[in-house]
């Protein structure tokens, strides 16, 4: 455990020693802030109009349904598809480029400890984004009274969604010395996983069912609503474990070749 924390600490330190952490956080804060304020203003506009029309339908328009859910359902995921490659692209690519991979792999720690350390470091940086999200959402509690419980599911969903992408991005980063390549490939893969469920719009049957099941979006919707479904939990945890496993295989293969 001490080794895992040592690696995680090193990763975090290099995120914050370089502009990456600040850039990711700033970009996220701006985009998330803009969408949040837009949804909030739209909500206010709508409720005022409803009240002007005689209070019809007002009870149905909750903050959870009209502000928080759309925020999670669409925008955040897309922003994260873009930002997570920036977090993961350096994890192994940079170690390979600078030769520090030799230090890590010849140290008396296991490959899995290194991988988990890196994952943990990346996840910690990612968690700051969740904190930013909820800093915005906390404003709603000051001026309104949304339900708090769905937020727990939404936070968990965001964490799992990010964790799955981080694990896959880390794996992709093991293949190259070039961070840009790792970043671009990761983004392409993430986007593909995100839109995989489009197939259900024009086709039915086994293939489309499988593709749709594999899509990140399919499993995020319930979380966005504030519902924790076991099958979504299993899906995200499986992707995380798979990503870590593939990373381990890939690092093992590094030892076989140059």
């Amino acid at each position, binding site marked *: 455990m*001490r*080794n895992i924390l*040592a*690696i995680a*600490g*090193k990763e975090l*330190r*290099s995120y914050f*020693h*370089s502009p990456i952490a600040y850039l990711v956080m700033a970009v996220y804060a701006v985009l998330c802030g803009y969408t949040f304020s837009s949804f909030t203003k739209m909500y206010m506009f709508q409720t005022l109009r409803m009240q002007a029309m005689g209070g019809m339908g007002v009870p149905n328009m909750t903050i959870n349904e009209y502000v928080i859910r759309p925020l999670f359902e669409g925008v955040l995921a897309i922003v994260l598809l873009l930002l997570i490659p920036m977090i993961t692209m350096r994890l192994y690519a940079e170690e390979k480029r*600078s*030769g*520090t*991979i*030799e*230090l*890590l*792999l*010849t*140290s*008396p*720690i*296991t490959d899995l400890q290194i991988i988990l350390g890196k994952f943990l470091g990346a996840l910690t940086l990612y968690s700051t984004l969740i904190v930013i999200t909820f800093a915005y959402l906390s404003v709603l509690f000051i001026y309104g009274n949304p339900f708090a419980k769905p937020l727990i599911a939404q936070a968990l969903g965001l964490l799992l969604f990010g964790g799955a992408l981080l694990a896959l991005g880390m794996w992709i980063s093991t293949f190259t010395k070039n961070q840009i390549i790792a970043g671009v490939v990761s983004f392409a893969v993430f986007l593909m996983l995100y839109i995989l469920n489009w197939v259900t719009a024009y086709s039915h049957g086994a293939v489309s069912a499988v593709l749709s099941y594999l899509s990140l979006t399919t499993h995020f919707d319930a979380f966005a609503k504030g519902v924790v479904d076991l099958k979504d939990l299993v899906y995200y945890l499986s992707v995380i474990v798979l990503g870590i496993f593939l990373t381990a295989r890939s690092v093992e293969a590094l*030892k*076989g*070749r*140059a």
Partner: protein
Amino acid sequence: MIEVENLTKRYGPTLAVSGVSFQVQKGEVLGFLGPNGAGKTTTMRIITGFLSASSGRVRVAGFDVAETPIEAKKCVGYLPENPPVYTDMTVKEYLAFVGRIKRVPRKELKKRIGEVSEKCAITDVQHRQIGKLSKGYRQRVGLAQAMIHNPEVLILDEPTAGLDPKQIIETRELIKGLAGQHTVILSTHILPEVSKTCQRVVVINKGTVVAMGAPDELTARLQGYGTVLVTAEAPAAEITGKLQTVPGVTLVEQRESSGPRITLEVHTEKNHDVRAELARAVVQSGWSLFELKSSGMSLEDIFLKLTTRDLSEEVSAQEESPAEGGGQAEPVN
């Protein structure tokens, strides 16, 4: 301390290392000599566990590198060709990080950082960012990193590359100082380095070991005869005749002469040290002896001989003969 048995490494169809075997005794400094691309780095990477071998086995301090990697790695400090430093960390942060993953106990970490920093002369740059240091400093930070957990075995891949002459001398002194307490393997293609720092040499070319032994031994063995240079003040013909009669001498040739002083090259039978007899012969004849040294082939000559033409008969030293004292310029009378 280190046993390498029949090590082979294939990259696809190319053989990088083929059937390499050697042993290093505890406290010994072994030089790994070969042209670029001979397989030095690959062999070292396998010993450190960075690469896996295609076949063969490596044991470090009794631990098999493939089967018990963690135990083996604990005993090894490794300085790769490019020092594996994180350029965004300060020297101190870096050494603290390496200490932690090398499992230096928390309480000792600070003390160890101080010790290795002092040994490698990087105490004055403790708080500087590594990315802003010169190549020489980075190299020494790399060396400090390799020693942070006080490993029994040190593997140094071209430790003096990129250093200036003064730093090279300092680094060699440092490495020599490690002998005895640490077992060291260092690779180089700079020949004087080997004769200056190593007790034993393994010459490797195209992935195979072509020669092994103490630098002096190698010279003698390859040459087939020993050579002694004698400088004296004496009549050329007489001294040549006199030295011819010394038992063990096969040939005397005049090398150069300046004024009354002449230098002779004396060939002797293999493994036959005749220096004492030569000195006696000169002095007893009433001539003045100025210099007497066994020269042999230079390491450059051996190196070229071994690596440029394919040696059909493999020249390999008998084991258990580390460090037979250097036979240079011994006192006369």
